[in-house]
């Protein structure tokens, strides 16, 4: 077991922190005595650097066990998942939901994790202790979490918590599969998916192609699981039984390996959430819509939620139902959004700078709300368009993306990951020559994000609030894709001020990028960005038409209601 943990720890050095933390928690549960010592020491550091030094933490993740820390919001998430897994019905939902919803509750979870650590089967007992401690009421537990948490988190997290609680209570009423988001150990979180995708890329650069059986075998054998179990995992995940793993299959297999290593028993059949179709829809979205969505999705849902609860405005309300209607898995997105919002408010993850940006944007959105409302017609449409882009015509734009610019998108995606997670991931083979050109676009987009954010508060212009609304509204429709957001902003900025931004970005990119980029590559990058913008425009136009149709329907409904009212009025008069 220590070997397993070492392997997990060593292997997961390149992980995202949350995923690693998640895994570490599970390992703790499954581990023997030797393991807790290590994790305990790691967890000791958890409360301290959590809030203030999140940036440093996220950057220090790579190469240090402290990587576990950033996953703090995952900690309760994982802990509760584990709990829910061990106890089928003990208010699992409540607890599972509370941690997923309240990342700031992770610090309390870490002390509880301390308690758990020394126990193996006592893990379950401590869980029960946890449950008992926090009592039945969900809010009580939540507040208890808040109290236990370090004083770093103030009223805002509490507000967010309460908002999340409310949203959670709303969510709880609906027995969606997404409501089991935090309960379900078989659901792949975004961070995990991103990590799996990265691993996939390390094995097979083309995201749309297969990993052959032998390659996958070698890879999964590294996890040191027994061969029969690996064989079973393969059977479960290779749905089409072709001897090769596509990306969703690979994600499912990887997730099963992860789960197994953390002590979960392998299921007999592939869980719903790991089905390739499900994963395909979800994984293709990040791949193909990486141009539009990023950590915004996290920020915006959170922003949206807080908006809903704090201000209950029409625009957000419209966005919420529309976006939820748009997405087949809207609840999941909400959950992710909540999680993301919580993460935003508490722990920016590896995309900490992006999340900071989103926080800033969120505040901007709040300020810009009065203005944005006036612009809601346009910005909302834009937002809804962008939000609707993946759900409504899912295969077509994705395919177009995959066919037309899959390579670019892959590069961009990878560049996003590279640029964003440069601190904690070993950079993908920098030898790939096309990548630098893409990274240029990425760097400028990221660089531009910052100035945009800085400009936004200062400017009371339509562009920035509209853009913010667009970007902000995007996440409600889309699961968290932070990298995509950078892309989105990167794309939007060219849209707004193509030449200026690009030229300004170029010198900025040059300053940022140590590697020498040739002008031709820059031009190519610009061209790819332009092409993507055009594609985005086409999709937005489609979204616009759909939104107009929806508007017409709503008008009809309104007219019907008005006629009904008129009919009723004479009755009352009489």
């Amino acid at each position: 077991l220590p070997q397993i943990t070492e392997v997990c720890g060593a292997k997961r050095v390149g992980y995202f922190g949350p995923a690693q933390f998640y895994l570490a928690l599970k390992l703790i549960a499954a581990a023997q005595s030797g393991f807790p010592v290590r994790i305990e020491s790691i967890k000791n550091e958890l409360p301290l650097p959590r809030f203030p030094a999140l940036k440093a933490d996220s950057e220090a993740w790579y190469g240090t066990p402290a990587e576990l820390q950033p996953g703090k919001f995952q900690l309760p998430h994982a802990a509760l998942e584990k709990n829910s897994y061990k106890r089928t019905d003990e208010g699992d939902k409540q607890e599972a939901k509370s941690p997923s919803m309240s990342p700031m509750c992770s610090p309390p979870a870490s002390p509880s994790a301390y308690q758990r650590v020394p126990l193996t089967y006592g893990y379950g007992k401590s869980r029960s202790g946890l449950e008992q401690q926090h009592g039945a009421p969900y809010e009580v537990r939540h507040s208890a979490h808040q109290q236990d948490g370090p004083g770093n988190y103030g009223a805002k997290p509490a507000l967010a918590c309460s908002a999340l609680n409310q949203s959670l209570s709303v969510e709880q009423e609906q027995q969606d599969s997404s409501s089991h988001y935090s309960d379900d150990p078989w659901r792949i979180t975004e961070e995990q998916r991103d990590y799996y995708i990265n691993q996939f890329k390390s094995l097979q650069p083309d995201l749309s192609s297969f990993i052959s059986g032998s390659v996958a075998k070698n890879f999964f054998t590294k996890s040191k699981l027994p061969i029969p179990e690996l064989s079973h995992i393969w059977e479960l995940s290779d749905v089409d039984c072709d001897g090769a793993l596509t990306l969703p299959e690979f994600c499912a297999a990887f997730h099963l390996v992860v789960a197994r290593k953390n002590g979960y028993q392998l299921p007999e059949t592939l869980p719903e959430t790991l089905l390739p179709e499900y994963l395909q829809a979800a994984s293709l979205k990040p791949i193909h819509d990486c141009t539009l969505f990023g950590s915004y999705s996290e920020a915006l849902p959170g922003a949206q939620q807080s908006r809903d609860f704090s201000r209950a405005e029409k625009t957000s309300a419209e966005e919420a139902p529309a976006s939820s209607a748009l997405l087949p898995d809207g609840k999941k997105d909400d959950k992710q959004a909540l999680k993301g919002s919580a993460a935003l408010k508490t722990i920016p993850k590896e995309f900490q700078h992006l999340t900071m940006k989103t926080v800033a944007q969120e505040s901007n959105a709040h300020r810009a709300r009065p203005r944005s409302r006036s612009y809601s017609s346009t910005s909302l449409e834009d937002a809804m368009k962008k939000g609707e882009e993946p759900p409504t015509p899912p295969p077509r734009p994705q395919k177009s993306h995959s066919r037309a610019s899959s390579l670019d998108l892959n590069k961009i995606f990878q560049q996003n990951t590279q640029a964003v997670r440069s601190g904690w991931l070993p950079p993908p083979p920098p030898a790939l020559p096309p990548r630098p050109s893409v990274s240029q676009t990425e760097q400028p987009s990221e660089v531009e994000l910052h100035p945009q954010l800085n400009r936004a508060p200062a400017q009371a212009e339509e562009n920035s609030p509209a853009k913010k609304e667009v970007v902000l509204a995007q996440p409600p429709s889309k699961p968290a894709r932070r990298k995509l957001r950078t892309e989105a902003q990167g794309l939007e900025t060219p849209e707004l001020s193509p030449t200026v931004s690009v030229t300004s970005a170029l010198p900025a990119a040059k300053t940022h990028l140590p590697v020498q980029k040739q002008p031709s590559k820059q031009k190519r990058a610009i061209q790819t960005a332009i092409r993507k913008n055009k594609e985005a425009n086409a999709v937005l136009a489609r979204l616009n038409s759909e939104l107009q149709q929806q508007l017409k329907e709503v008008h009809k409904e309104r007219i019907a209601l008005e006629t009904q009212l008129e009919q009723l009025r004479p009755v009352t008069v009489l």
Partner: protein
Amino acid sequence: VLLSIICSPPQNYPLYIRSVPTENELKFHYTVHTSLDVVDEKISAMGKALVDQRELYLGLLYPTEDYKVYGYVTNSKVKFVMVVDSSNTALRDNEIRSMFRKLHNSYTDIMCNPFYNPGDRIQSRAFDNMVNSMMMQVC
């Protein structure tokens, strides 16, 4: 009463044995082993047409036991043997063929698994489920 066995060349040792009734299993095993010789005989007899999709083997019909043994060989000389009780008169040839086809498909699925080494005993849970469901269907 149903028993199925998969045997692989060249030594013809069984990779997988599953029977629905738990009694008299050894007798079935013995029967299967003896039938393997007959199957090999038939294979060698068909020198030209190596594509041997289906083989109905009704030879072993003991007067007392009264059961049938069916054989099936794949292109890679993997033999499937099925012993069926004759009291199940409802079993037609087509059903036997379909059962063998299902077995063959499941076997190829197992082969696709890179963690499976040809020659190992088959421990796939999916395969077990398939065989169990098939047997339940018959009985």
